């Protein structure tokens, strides 16, 4: 017997992605008790051992009814919104979130199935944003600050999107945490980025810059920034948010500076490799193909193209024994070897 008698079990106006696809799970959430035991527990022994709290099966149908009733009220409020109002879209999204926020099926998916959520639904974007703000956003900003990526590359960042990064060096499909030290073997091929928008997005254009601000500049006795990779006009949406090799092969104009792996020279220490993601207002104009990589002025570039950063990522690399192989792969000359300058010992 299903506890749902109203809007949450009807999918005429609501998206079917708001319902759980697993039938056993769905039955468990829509019945007062657990008719076939706890589905989420894997082993038979733990299923047998499990005991729910007494009284939950009594109160749950009533609680469901209260929340479903509230949701119905909100849906009727959406119907009565003024469609010509300038804030219509915002109001609608807000109400749609409120209507579905407490739906147990939605809560289940948002809590335990984070990787397969339908991002076209405002409520899932809402939950994803909360999860992101609770950990990844803070972690990224802490790493950007401690590694001084801000203000060494761009002055600051107000993150709007989540940026995930991975390299296709092996079969393991693992996102890289900001600030990780990677070997040259990992970074030899261009990475895949996922840009997760928390607003409704149907065809926004994005620019990605990959820069190394730690290239030694002997003439100035300082460091300069090198542009390692430049991608522009990539069309992303809530359903398709990946920037990977496949997408770049299809649109060859996107890659205005081809990928060059970070090949650090020996004894130059750890290099920060910053990824900056910008949301564009229109097509990018001041980004000619084959832009000069060395002495890249990222602030100038951002100003010329009127870009605003929405997300970032950072990794670190170091010279290792594989670096020379990567250089050969890309036809680069052998790297310099820096040595410590001996300063004569001075008395006083």
């Amino acid at each position, binding site marked *: 017997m299903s506890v749902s008698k109203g809007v949450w079990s009807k999918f005429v106006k609501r998206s079917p992605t708001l319902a759980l696809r697993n039938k056993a799970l769905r039955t468990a959430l829509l019945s007062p008790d657990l008719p076939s035991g706890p589905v989420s527990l894997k082993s038979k022994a733990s299923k047998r051992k499990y005991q729910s709290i007494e009284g939950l099966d009594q109160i749950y149908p*009533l609680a469901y009814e209260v929340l479903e009733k509230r949701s119905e009220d909100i849906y009727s409020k959406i119907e009565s919104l003024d469609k010509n109002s300038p804030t219509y879209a915002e109001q609608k999204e807000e109400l749609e979130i409120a209507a579905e926020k407490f739906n147990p099926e939605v809560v289940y998916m948002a809590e335990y199935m984070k990787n397969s959520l339908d991002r076209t639904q405002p409520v899932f974007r809402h939950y994803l944003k909360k999860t992101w703000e609770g950990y990844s956003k803070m972690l990224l900003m802490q790493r950007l600050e401690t590694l001084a990526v801000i203000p060494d590359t761009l002055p600051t960042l107000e993150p709007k999107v989540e940026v995930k990064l991975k390299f296709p060096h092996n079969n393991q499909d693992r996102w890289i945490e900001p600030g990780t030290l990677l070997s040259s073997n990992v970074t030899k091929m261009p990475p895949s980025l996922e840009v997760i928008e928390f607003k409704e997005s149907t065809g926004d254009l994005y620019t990605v810059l990959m820069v190394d601000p730690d290239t030694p500049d002997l003439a100035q006795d300082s460091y300069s920034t090198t542009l390692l990779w430049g991608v522009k006009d990539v069309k992303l949406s809530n359903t398709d948010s990946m920037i990977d090799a496949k997408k770049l092969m299809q649109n060859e104009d996107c890659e205005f500076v081809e990928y060059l792996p970070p090949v650090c020279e020996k004894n130059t220490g750890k290099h920060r490799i910053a990824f900056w993601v910008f949301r564009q207002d229109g097509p990018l104009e001041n980004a000619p193909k084959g832009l000069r990589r060395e002495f890249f002025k990222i602030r100038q570039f951002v100003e010329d193209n009127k870009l605003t950063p929405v997300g970032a990522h950072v990794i670190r690399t170091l010279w290792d024994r594989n670096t020379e192989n990567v250089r050969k792969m890309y036809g680069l000359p052998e790297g310099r070897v820096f040595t410590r300058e001996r300063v004569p010992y001075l008395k006083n």
Partner: protein
Amino acid sequence: MSHFKWGRRCLATNVATPLSNVQTGVILSRVPQVTPEVTDFEQKFYKYQDELERRLMWTFPRWFYFKKGTVAEREFSQAQKYPLPARDGVWFPKGKPEIRHGRDRRFKENIVLPKAEGHEKQGESSATQVENLDDASRPIKPLPRVTEADKTNNQHSLERKLSRTLYLLVRQNNMWKFPAFPVPDDSKPLHTIAEEGLKNLGGEKLNVWTVSHTPTALLKFSNGKLVHDLPQDGIREYLIRSHIIAGEFQLNKIDGCEEYKWLTREEIQQQTDPAYFEKIDCLLSKV
């Protein structure tokens, strides 16, 4: 200057100015005697929370309450149902018990109180047995929340609808309303006139507590009807809030009062004029 009058003593003037068409009304209420009715949702919620709390409770330290070797300890121990301890070679399909101080720490603890002597057979003869009120250890038998007055729907009784706030309504000049008394001049404050008026109306055996000297609302009447804008000859009625503490209201038919009733908010809605109810609705307790 941010001065405001904190109870400034009013100047004693002996001259009383006569007032015309001013009345003071009384909202006399009987506060709930028993707790409000619990809805089904609330009751089940409390039940669930109680079960959760019992599951998360520490084990009852019986050794503190029952000294070893006493009769009380033996009786208590015999009344308990102890869980089966874990043993080697025995398979427990519901999981291996983890027993500490006689409690399986995976579940809530069930404490059974041993029955007091002399009450063991009370289940059979309780209906016929007369309760011995001097016996302090007698089993607790609560009185019903629904009283005789509820069954007969005696609206003159103060013992009806114990879980609700009751308000005193009188039929004054053919209109059901709160009782009101004329204010002849300004020699006496409003609440005193209200108290004295109630004494005259309801008899001496009335213990009434006036909540405040401040009137809680203003009703404007013209020709026996509630109006929004007061004409020249209209009547002002200031409502004073008070509670009945004890005693009985026995109506003396003065000031045009003919009948009285103790009513809840919903009953007032049915009894009174819609315009009147709309005005006083915010003053009435929903419970």
